[in-house]
């Protein structure tokens, strides 16, 4: 009898573990009543703006720099270009929720794993609205949870100004990507940092004004 219950105990323990770790991001926060079902992100949403940032990329100890350029070209799609400081294009693509089209890429960057990583990062960065299922809070933020396939996105809005400061993308067990925004007003980000937790990749964007 003792023997036959053991496997069940094990399975139960396993599920307990899964359930506990399930809320890897939200576990530190207090559940809150949902006050909105959709959040719009303003930072790259104005089709009149050219979004031009100096960018520094650190990947497994290697440093790269250049210019990141993004522009909303229609209701669903952004055009994104990376160039060196000297202006030559390294990567040029169009991205929307469902589509991804490369216009040009230098052979050194033409690696499937790299392209897929950048695609996930920039789809999240440029995503214009998030459907919200759950809300949490802590001292300074209201945290909104949005399901995205088999992952979840958590949006951190300040209680004070309702300004989006952070997005965490996580699987059920661990955090994967953190995007932080530094914004003086709530429509535009001066600085953006995309940090990966599972690989050593950090992308930093600093807005610059052309003269």
């Amino acid at each position: 009898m003792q023997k036959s219950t053991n496997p069940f105990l094990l399975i139960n323990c396993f599920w307990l573990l899964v359930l506990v770790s399930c809320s890897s991001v939200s576990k530190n926060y207090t559940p809150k009543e949902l006050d909105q079902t959709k959040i719009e992100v303003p930072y790259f949403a104005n089709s009149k703006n050219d979004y031009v940032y100096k960018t520094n990329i650190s990947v497994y100890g290697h440093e790269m720099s250049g210019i990141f350029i993004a522009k909303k070209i229609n209701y669903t799609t952004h055009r994104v270009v990376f160039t060196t400081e000297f202006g030559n294009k390294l990567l040029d693509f169009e991205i929307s929720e469902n589509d991804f089209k490369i216009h040009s890429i230098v052979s050194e960057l033409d690696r499937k794993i790299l392209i897929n990583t950048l695609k996930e990062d920039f789809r999240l960065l440029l995503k214009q609205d998030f459907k919200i299922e759950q809300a949490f809070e802590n001292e300074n933020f209201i945290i909104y949870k949005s399901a995205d396939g088999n992952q979840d996105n958590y949006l951190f809005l300040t209680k004070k100004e309702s300004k989006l400061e952070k997005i965490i993308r996580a699987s059920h067990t661990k955090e994967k990507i953190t995007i932080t925004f530094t914004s003086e007003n709530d429509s535009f980000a001066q600085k953006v940092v995309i940090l990966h937790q599972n690989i050593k990749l950090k992308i930093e964007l600093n807005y610059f004004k052309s003269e």
Partner: protein
Amino acid sequence: MRTKLFLFFFILIGLNVSAQEQKMTEAEISTFKQQVNVVSKKIKTLSTDFVQYKHLDFLSKDIETSGKMYFKEPALLSWQYKKPYNYSIVFKNGKILINDEGKKSAVDIGNSKIFARINKLIVGSVSGNMFDDAAFTISYFKLKGKNLAKFIPKEATLKKYIKQIELTFDKEDASVVQVKLLESSEDYTRIVLKNKVINAKIDESVFTN
């Protein structure tokens, strides 16, 4: 990886399109080339201000950056972006030295043939002495107060990144006033050179990054 990325830029510098281009005659080409060669041969040092305009067709305006460029014979070269950010790159003794807002790095490129080639291309672009380069098909035009040389790469590898380089020369002093690099028919980088100073003493510190 960084090295290679940089190389790309360097492979690119310049092109110019104008409404009133007129093809030079053989005699005019010969006179023009000779004039430029005389001027560029005299160059021991060169410093110039530059403004770079990156044109991407989908943007509402060009991305403008600016700074100073220094060259010293035989192969010291420094590009310094000052606005809107500080970023400089020095070519020195087979090395590329980068200073990105104070963050320094160096890339050893050794005796790389491609480096030698790129260096030649940049120096050639700025001094104008690129006419002997067999890697390009060159054509010559006259404009109002200016001369224009168009360089089309012959090699497929270079062609992938540069459709055409255009150097615009002042008609009076035969010096390069604009370098334009066409990536495609819509997208290009245009660098305007001004306040050029030839053979003045250049402080060595501009080549230490």
